[in-house]
C-alpha cells in the first residue's frame, strides 16, 4: 500500500482559448491520512483544484490517480460517492430531515434501512449532536455551526477514504469557527481520513494542516511543506507576504496547552476559612491563590488586597475565573485568555472542568524561546 493516496499529474484546466488557465500543469500528491491544506489568495485556483479531484470540474489535460487507480475517465458519479465533499455554503437539502440528509450517500449505495439508521445515529454522536433531538429536524431549524456539523457528518456517511473540504468554516462566526476547528481536529484523530482542505485564511491553514500548499495564480505551488517549516523558512517573498507579519504568533496555533509545563498556584477548596486563605497567600510566590469548588473546578482568583478590603465571605471576594483552557486548546487561545485575565494567568482544566494547573506568560515565552 503506497503512502500516496491522491496524485494529480500535470493537470491543467483552462476555460476556452485566450483566457489564463485556472490550473496550470499542477502535480500534487496527497498522503494517506494527512490533512493537506490548499491556501492562497482568492482566484488562485485552489477551489478549482479541489473540484478537479472529484471531477466536478473536468481537467483539460493531465491525469488523476486515487489509490493508484487512474480515475481520469472513471464514472464521475460513482467516483464522487467514494469521496466526501463539504462546502462553505453546506448545501443541506432543505426538504429533507437531518437523518435523510446524512443518509444521502448510503442510500445511493443501497445500504439496508437498519444499517443506515444506525450509521446516522453514530455520525450525529460523532459530531456532538444528540440523535434523539436532531434526527427528524429540518435544516432550517439549525444554526450555521450546527448545519456545518451535519455537512461534515453527511460527507463522512459512507466512510470515504478521502474528504474534500472547500472553506468549510468560512461563513461561520469566529467563535463558533474556532470551536468547530478544534472539534474537527479531534474528529480527524478518530477517523484518520485523507483530507484536502481549501481556505484563504493562513491562520486556519496553519492550525488545520499537516502540510500546507501555498498557491499562487494558476494554482502554481509556491511552497509545499509542514506549517512549522513554512513559518520558519518561507520559500520566497510571495510566501512571506502571504504569511504576513508575526510568524511567531501564528506558530502559537500549532502548539497546544498540553505542550507547556503547567505552573501550580496555591489552591483553596471552598468552603475555606479566612485565616487559611491568608496563610496560603503569604506562602504563594505569585501572591495569588485559586479558589476551587467542592469538585475541584476553579471559581475565583483571591489575593491579599481583596481579602483585606472586604468582610465579604471569601466565596465573593477576588475576581471570578471566567474562561478556562483545556489541554487541547492552542497556545494562541491561551495567550488570549492570559491577556484578558486579571492575574496574567489562565487556568487549565480537564474535560470535566477540574483544575490541572495554570499557564503563565513566562512559561509561554520560555517555550517560544526554546524553539527559536
Amino acid at each position: 500500500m503506497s503512502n500516496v493516496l491522491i496524485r494529480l499529474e500535470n493537470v491543467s484546466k483552462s476555460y476556452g482559448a485566450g483566457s489564463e488557465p485556472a490550473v496550470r500543469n499542477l502535480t500534487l500528491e496527497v498522503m494517506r491520512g494527512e490533512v493537506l491544506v490548499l491556501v492562497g489568495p482568492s482566484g488562485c485556483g485552489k477551489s478549482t483544484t479541489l473540484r478537479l479531484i472529484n471531477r466536478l470540474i473536468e481537467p483539460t489535460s493531465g491525469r488523476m490517480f486515487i489509490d493508484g487507480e487512474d480515475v481520469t475517465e472513471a464514472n464521475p458519479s460513482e467516483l464522487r460517492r467514494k469521496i466526501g465533499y463539504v462546502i462553505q455554503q453546506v448545501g443541506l437539502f432543505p426538504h429533507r430531515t437531518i437523518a435523510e440528509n446524512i443518509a444521502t450517500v448510503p442510500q445511493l449505495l443501497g445500504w439496508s434501512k437498519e444499517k443506515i439508521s444506525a450509521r446516522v445515529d453514530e455520525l450525529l454522536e460523532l459530531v456532538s449532536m444528540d440523535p434523539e433531538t436532531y434526527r427528524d429536524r429540518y435544516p432550517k431549524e439549525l444554526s450555521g455551526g450546527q448545519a456545518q456539523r451535519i455537512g461534515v457528518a453527511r460527507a463522512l456517511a459512507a466512510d470515504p477514504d478521502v474528504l474534500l473540504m472547500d472553506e468549510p468554516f468560512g461563513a461561520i462566526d469566529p467563535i463558533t469557527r474556532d470551536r468547530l476547528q478544534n472539534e474537527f481536529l479531534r474528529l480527524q484523530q478518530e477517523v484518520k481520513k485523507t483530507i484536502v482542505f481549501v481556505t484563504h485564511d493562513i491562520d486556519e491553514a496553519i492550525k488545520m494542516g499537516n502540510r500546507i500548499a501555498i498557491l499562487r495564480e494558476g494554482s502554481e505551488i509556491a511552497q509545499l511543506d509542514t506549517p512549522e517549516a513554512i513559518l520558519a523558512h518561507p520559500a520566497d517573498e510571495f510566501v512571506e507576504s502571504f504569511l504576513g507579519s508575526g510568524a511567531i504568533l501564528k506558530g502559537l496555533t500549532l502548539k497546544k496547552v498540553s505542550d507547556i509545563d503547567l505552573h501550580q498556584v496555591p489552591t483553596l477548596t471552598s468552603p475555606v476559612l479566612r485565616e487559611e486563605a491568608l496563610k496560603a497567600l503569604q506562602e504563594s510566590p505569585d501572591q495569588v491563590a485559586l479558589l476551587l469548588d467542592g469538585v475541584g473546578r476553579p471559581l475565583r482568583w483571591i489575593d491579599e488586597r481583596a481579602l483585606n478590603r472586604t468582610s465579604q465571605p471569601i466565596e465573593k471576594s477576588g475576581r471570578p475565573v471566567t474562561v478556562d483552557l483545556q489541554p487541547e486548546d492552542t497556545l494562541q487561545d491561551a495567550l488570549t485568555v492570559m491577556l484578558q485575565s486579571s492575574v496574567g494567568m489562565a487556568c487549565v482544566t480537564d474535560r470535566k472542568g477540574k483544575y490541572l494547573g495554570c499557564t503563565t506568560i513566562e512559561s509561554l515565552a520560555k517555550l517560544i524561546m526554546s524553539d527559536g
Partner: protein
Amino acid sequence: MTTAISPGKTRSPLSERLDLIISPIFAAGLAILGFAVWTYSDLDKITIAILSPDKIQRQIGETLILGLTSSILVVLIAVPVGILVTRKGYPRLKSALVNTLGLGQALPAYGLIVIFFSFMGSGIVTVILALATFSLLPVLRNTIVGLEQVDKSVIDAARGMGLTARQILLKIELPLSVEVILGGIRTAVVINIGFSALAFLVGGGGLGETINSGLKLDRGPAILIGAVMVAIMALLFDFLSALAQKYLKPKGL
C-alpha cells in the same frame, strides 16, 4: 450558513391563510348572488328554458372538460420544456422561448380562438388547443423560475455526493420548485376555466352558451347566472390548486 435555504418567496402565515380562504369567500358571495337572482327575479318561460337543469349540467361538464383537458395539455408540454431549457447548454433557447410566448400572451384569448378556428374549423379540439396556447406561458415561466431559484450550493453538494443529473432533477430540483410550478399551473387552470366561456363561439359548448342565449334573448338573470357559475368554477379550481400547493410542498421549506 442558514442563507443556504432556498431563497424562494417566503410567505407570512397570514397571507398563506388568506390564500386559502379568499376564493371560497368570493365563491360563496357569488353563489348567494346567483341564488338570490334565481329566487327573487321574475323568471319567464324563456329564461327558465335557458337555465334548464339538463342544459346547465351539460355546459358545466363541457366547461370542466375544456378547462381541465387544456390545463393537462399545458402541464404535459410546459413542464418538460421548462425542465429541458433549464438544463445546461440551452440558455439561448430559453430566452427565445420566453420572449415568443410573451408575445403570444399579448394576443387576446378571443383572437386566439378565432385564429385557431380559421385553421381547424369548429369544435372542442380547437378550443382546447387555443386555451392551451394561451395558458402555456405561466406554467412555462414558473417552471423555469422555480427550477432556477433552487439554491446552487444545494445542487453543488448533491453533485459532489454523487447524485446523477437525473437524481438531482427528481429528488432535489423538482421537490424544491414544486410550489412555484404549481403556482403557474394554478394560474393556467383559472385562465382556462374562465376563458372556456368563449368556447361557444366556435361550437365548443360550455357555460358561455347560457350567457350568449341570455344576451341574444335579452334575459338579464340568465346572463348573470351563467357568468356567476363560470366565476364560481374558476374560484373553485383556484382553491383546489391552492390546497395542492400547500400540501404538495415538501415539509421543511
